[in-house]
Every structure is written in C-alpha cells, then in structure tokens.
C-alpha cells in the first residue's frame, strides 16, 4: 500500500487558512471606525447661555436625522459619534442655523455659537 506524502497539502492548507484569516480581519477592520464627541454651547446676544435651542444631528446630505437634543444650561453633548461628516441644525424661537462639522477619531469637537 502506498501512502501519500501530505506535507505539500499541509502547506497549501496553511496558506489558504492564512488568506482566509487575512480576509476576515480586513472585513472586520473595514467595518470598524473611530469615534469622537461633539459639544455645542449656545449664547444669546448678551453673552448669556441660551436654553431650549433645538440641535439636530443629521447625516452629511440631510437624508436622515441621527440624533437631537435641546440645550440645557446652554449646552448639548453627543457622545461616541462615528467619525465622519455631519450636518447640524440649530433652531431657536427666533432663528435657525445650519452648519457642517467633521468628527475625528478620538477627538472632542467644541462649538460655541451665538444665536442671533
């Protein structure tokens, strides 16, 4: 009876296994992204903190509202946002403002805004 030499096959299996692991890791890494925080502080014309301002957080092209909050003691915080470009809409009784912001991985973005 003749036995096959399996050392060549083993090497091939190891290579295939390695490629598979690399592909899986790439898939996982592509799916992961960094996170950052956003803090917005609103003031009125007299420089006093402004409450009850609507702060809406939207996707870059306004397709979707991702979160919202109203200012309390002049501020709102959005914690752990995936890094990327966002649109922010601020609405008080008197006025409305829109802006684009970039959230970077591991960074906190602070915005101080005077609402006219």
């Amino acid at each position, binding site marked *: 009876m003749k036995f096959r030499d399996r050392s060549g096959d083993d090497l091939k299996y190891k290579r295939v296994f390695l490629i598979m692991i690399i592909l899986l890791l790439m*898939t996982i890494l592509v799916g992961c992204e960094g996170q950052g925080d956003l803090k917005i502080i609103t003031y009125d014309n007299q420089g006093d903190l402004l409450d009850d301002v609507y702060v809406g957080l939207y996707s870059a092209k306004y397709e979707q509202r991702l979160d919202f909050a109203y200012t309390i003691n002049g501020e709102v915080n959005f914690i752990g946002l995936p890094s990327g470009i966002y649109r922010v809409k601020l609405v008080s009784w008197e006025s409305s403002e829109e802006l684009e912001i970039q959230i970077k991985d591991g960074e906190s973005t602070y915005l101080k805004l005077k609402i006219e």
Partner: protein
Amino acid sequence: MLKYSKSFSTILFIISALFLINLPADAVSDLEKEIAKKNLVKYQEEYGLAYLEATARNRIYNIFDRLSAEAAKDARDLNFKLYIVDAPVLNAAYLGDGNLVLFKGLVDRLKDDNQLAAVIAHELGHGVNNDIEESINLIQGLQVGGVLFETFTKGNRYEGILDVAGNIGLNLLEKGYSREQERDADEYSVSLSERAGYDSYGAIELMYILKEGGSNDTRLGELFSSHPNLDNRVDYLKDLVKSFKDAKELYYSPIATARALAQGILSDNLEMVYGSYWNKVQGNRSLNQLKNNKNLKQIEERIVIISLDNFGELGYTLELRNQVENTARVAISFYDDNNQQEDLSLAIDLIKDQYGWKLVRDPRIYNLK
C-alpha cells in the same frame, strides 16, 4: 495545484456570499422587483383583475390613497400600487416593490371602511417593514448553503447559483411571512389606520370576519395564514388597539405628556412616569430599573424638600419652549401653592411617534448647580 485553486475559490466564494448576504439593502433590490413582477403576472394570468362598480372601486382606492400617502412617509423608496384580483377568497397579499393584491372575495365581505383600511394597512406594513427583502435574504442564505453543499459534494456550483434566483419567488409564495413579520405588520396596521384617520378597531373586526371564514386559499395570500393563530391575533390586537387609544388620550401633545409626567412625579406614581417614556427608552430600561434611576431620584428628593419647606401642596405650570420636526422641549415648573414661588424647573425632551408624544430622555433640572 488544481485542488489548491478549487479550495481557494470555494473559500473566496463563501466569504463573498456571506458578505453580500449581510449588506444592508436600503432601496428595493432588482431581485425583489423581478419577484414582484413575476408574482403579479401570475395572479393576473390565473385569475384576472376584478370588475368593480365605480362607487365600490372609488371607495377602495380612496382608502388606499389615504393610507399609502401616509405609509410613503415611512418608505420613500416605494411607490405603492393596489390590484384587485378576481378570486372569491378571503385573502390579500403584498407582492414586493410596493405592489398589493386584494382578492374580490374579501373586498365583497368587508363593508366597513375601517376593516378595509386594516387589510390595506397590514399589507402596506409588509412593504414598509421590507419583509420581502428580509425573506429574500433568508431564502438566499439557505439556498447559498445548498449551493455550497452541492459544490462540495458534486462540484456543480454554477448551476446551483442560477437556481437560487429562480427558486426565491416560488419559496416566498409558498412559505409566506414569519410570525414576527405578521405581528409587526399587524402593529403597523393599527398605527397607520389611526394616523390616516380610521378606527384601528377595524383590525379586530377583520380578524373576526376571517375567523368566520368562507372560501379561503392560503396559497393565494398570507392574510389568512395559520400563523399567528387567529385567536392569539385577536387578543394581541385588542391590547394593541387599547394601548393606542389610551396613548392618544394621554399623550396627544407635548403639553399633555408633560402633564402626565408631572402628575406622576407629584403623586409618586412610577408607572405613570414610566408610561410617558418613548418605547425605545422603555425597551432599554425596565420599570424596576427606572426606580433606581439617579436623575429621577434627584428630582424626587428635591420635590420632597420643597414640599416640606413650604408646608403646602405643590402645583406646576407647563410651557412649550420649542418644537421642531416632531420633537419638542417643554418646561415643567413646580411651585408652592401658597406663595406661588417657583422652586424647581425641569426640562423634558419629547418625540412624536405612533403612541403620541413621549420622553426621549430623563427630565433634567434647569440651572442645576
């Protein structure tokens, strides 16, 4: 070398297939469009479109227009269309890509607008919930599994892949929707009927009519499917309709919800407080967990202190401070009845959903030092 190449391509195929199955599908896929088209042709060829008197036809399409206009807000990628098929059965179906089918047997039986709205809203629910796409993904997953099995056992991968697309439409018609999808569509039906101005009690009446039966054929549609059981369906629909109607009375505006919350806080009625929260918040936090909530405990302590300080009953005022895109900020100010002095002011953030205006987060104290 050949063996190595085959193993490698097989693994690559598995990874690609798994990756593709998990890709999110925002818009209607070409496959869903193709399946919907085939199913629609099948129904039309087999039974033909029903002839209806102008009055009856206008009545049905008016109801459909009102409901689909409202449902389109939840599924902007769908263009809803309704077909009435000439089959004497009590059934209806959602075929995918916005296409709904009602059978003449059911249309003839339902005399009440609310019952008809319940059927149409249920089928629209399958569209809004993307149920066809979900089923396609599930069946695709199962069939990709079958293809892989064939690849390993027979090596005829390419024939297998071609079979996947061909069999999906047939599978969808035969298997219908899952129990969970049916429940979600029922829930959507109640919600949509109320939003469009119909009485959601029509959904319960519809179940009684289906229970009475008549000529049915479960292969033609999913409304009269054996799952979930019709008795269970009546029970949970009764609970659902009641909660919608209660919510409509209690939480019909930001101020109404703020009132319910303020009364709950003052009377130490935690269930009332819990009921004013958004169902997504309730999903993450039970009533028991709310009892130990730090923010609410802080508010309760302040209420107790100011009550003792003032030797009197506390009153409250409610003020709508802002309202934007189905969200609102309301201020609740508690004051002593005797000296009318404001002692504690709370900010609450609300969102409007199918159960009315609800709290999206815990109340916070203004000017908290």
